């Protein structure tokens, strides 16, 4: 039974890996891709393409979450995966950039359903295993980013990069078959409306807006530093590193996120989330500021190591806070709503980064990101880690401690 369960989790995590991997595959290389495949030289087209993609996910993700409240999750997932297979294959047949964009929008309409996988794993694992699952998710997520970035660099250099979309479609088809097999005996029906939630915790809209804003600013700050980071470190007057070294520097946080897995599993328990998040976001602000302020490459490396570790821990903490405060019947809906806020952050980050760089300097996104982290800290402290009732941990119905137990 346990072996079967862990196989199921491994398979679902493999789905997460493949989904992130195929999403990240080209993202750092779109300018080269559009130029090579469709002859589009205008860099702004990449910005437009990414903006439309993000906007599609912002709109579609809550729709899948909403459907999950009425239909069984696994069937939604099958539909999304099958649609993704067809659309990814069609992308390989694109003859113009706009056709490629149209197919991408259709693809994302289906692929937004993949956001149901993570809360599904949480639902199947049970609340007592949430921190282990969140840690594994962070490791898988960032592992896929590292692998996708490396594979993307190779892919863009191929003669006919478009053909590889058939490969991605095959991976999606494999995912579909895998899910069909592992979920065949599993009920993914949403529980009936939770009767155990207290009135305070049952009222989730205020909390969802608050955590949504925390997630939005968190993603905005941490994605703000991405677009111009390699440009910043390769400046001759700054660190003067070459492109290969800059890509290593760029990937340090993702590697550190994988290293953070044991820590997240061990320490991110519901009673500690508040202090871990608030300390973590403060360290994020400090390390972001350091990266923009220092002239020493050693300090940048050190700051990125600490930054990457704290990034994974704080992100996992936010997710655990979200799951911990979501009643079972709203898990998928709340997660997809939160992901819409996250995507709004992703959406605005490149736009803000471009403006900040053109108005100030290549280091400015790091300082602005640090300032946003501090604002996020203050807001999170007064809302999701202060103003709202803490989630009731698992095992509560098996305990009745004495008054003044702290003796």
């Amino acid at each position, binding site marked *: 039974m346990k072996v079967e369960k862990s196989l199921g989790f491994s398979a679902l995590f493999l789905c997460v890996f493949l989904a992130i991997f195929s999403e990240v595959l080209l993202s750092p290389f779109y300018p080269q891709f559009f130029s090579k495949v469709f002859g589009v030289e205008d860099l702004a087209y990449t910005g437009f393409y990414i903006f439309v993609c993000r906007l599609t996910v912002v709109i579609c993700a809550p729709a899948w979450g909403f459907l999950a409240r009425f239909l069984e999750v696994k069937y939604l997932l099958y539909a999304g995966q099958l649609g993704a297979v067809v659309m990814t294959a069609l992308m390989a047949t694109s003859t113009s950039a706009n056709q490629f964009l149209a197919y991408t929008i259709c693809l994302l309409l289906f692929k937004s359903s993949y956001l149901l996988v993570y809360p599904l794993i949480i639902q199947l694992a049970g609340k007592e295993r949430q921190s282990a699952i969140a840690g594994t998710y962070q490791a898988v997520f960032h592992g896929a980013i590292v692998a996708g970035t490396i594979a993307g660099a190779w892919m863009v250099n191929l003669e006919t990069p478009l053909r590889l979309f058939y490969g991605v479609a095959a991976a999606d088809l494999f995912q579909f078959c895998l899910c069909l097999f592992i979920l065949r005996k599993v009920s993914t029906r949403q529980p009936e409306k939770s009767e155990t939630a207290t009135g305070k915790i049952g009222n989730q809209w205020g909390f969802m807006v608050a955590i949504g804003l925390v997630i939005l600013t968190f993603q905005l700050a941490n994605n703000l530093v991405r677009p111009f980071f390699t440009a910043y470190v390769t400046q001759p007057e700054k660190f003067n590193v070459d492109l290969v070294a800059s890509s290593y520097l760029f990937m340090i946080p993702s590697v550190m996120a994988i290293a953070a897995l044991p820590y997240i599993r061990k320490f991110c328990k519901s009673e500690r989330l508040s202090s871990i998040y608030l300390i973590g976001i403060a360290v994020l602000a400090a390390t972001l500021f350091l990266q923009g302020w220092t002239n020493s490459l050693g300090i940048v490396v050190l700051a990125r190591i600490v930054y990457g570790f704290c990034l994974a821990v704080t992100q996992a903490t936010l997710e655990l806070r979200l799951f911990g405060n979501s009643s079972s019947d709203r898990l998928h809906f709340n997660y997809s709503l939160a992901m819409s806020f996250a995507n709004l952050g992703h959406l605005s980050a490149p736009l803000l980064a471009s403006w900040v760089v053109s108005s100030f300097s290549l280091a400015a996104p790091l300082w602005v990101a640090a300032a946003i982290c501090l604002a996020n800290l203050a807001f999170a402290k007064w809302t999701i880690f202060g103003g709202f009732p803490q989630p009731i941990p698992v095992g509560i119905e098996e305990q*009745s401690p*004495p008054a003044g137990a*702290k003796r």
Partner: protein
Amino acid sequence: MASTQVEKKPEFAYQNYDSTLDKTIAFREVQLGEDLTRIHNWMNQPHVIPFWNLGLELDKMQSHLERAIADTHQTLYIGYLDGVPMSYWESYWTKDDIIANCYQPHPEDQGIHLLIGEPDYLGKGYALPLLKAMTAFQLQHLQTQKIVTEPDIRNQKMIHVFERCGFEFQREITLPDKQAALMFCSRDRFMEKWES
């Protein structure tokens, strides 16, 4: 992981077969030497720490347990399920407890605190039969006419388990670290509910 090794002849103060579980429930008094590491482990479980706040180091836990065992207003028990120790219980006289500030206690009233320490035993519906067994055990003291409890007011799950056992909500009370639901279970009500 619960130790499935049955100890050598534990001296049970109470033992009863529960037909709903098809398991035997038993309680024995806590022995410091035998139970220190077990209770220390349970008190440091993630599902226990937020409520009991006793995630102490082993030496501090030893001092705490020494004091608790020496305290005559309560008796500490280890609860067993089919020979496996899996829960910790405090049975106390309410007249000497902080709860006495919240209602007029009868000198023979008793109260219950509990925790299921082994994670593998959580969420399996064991709380009610165990609680029923402990209440029955306390009511073996014939002068006791009422069992009292004070779960956290937010802990609807636990309140529901107490209600199913026969406890009735009286009112909300303020205790040093929580808003609690004061609940009573009278001997008559318990007997009426569970006497077959």
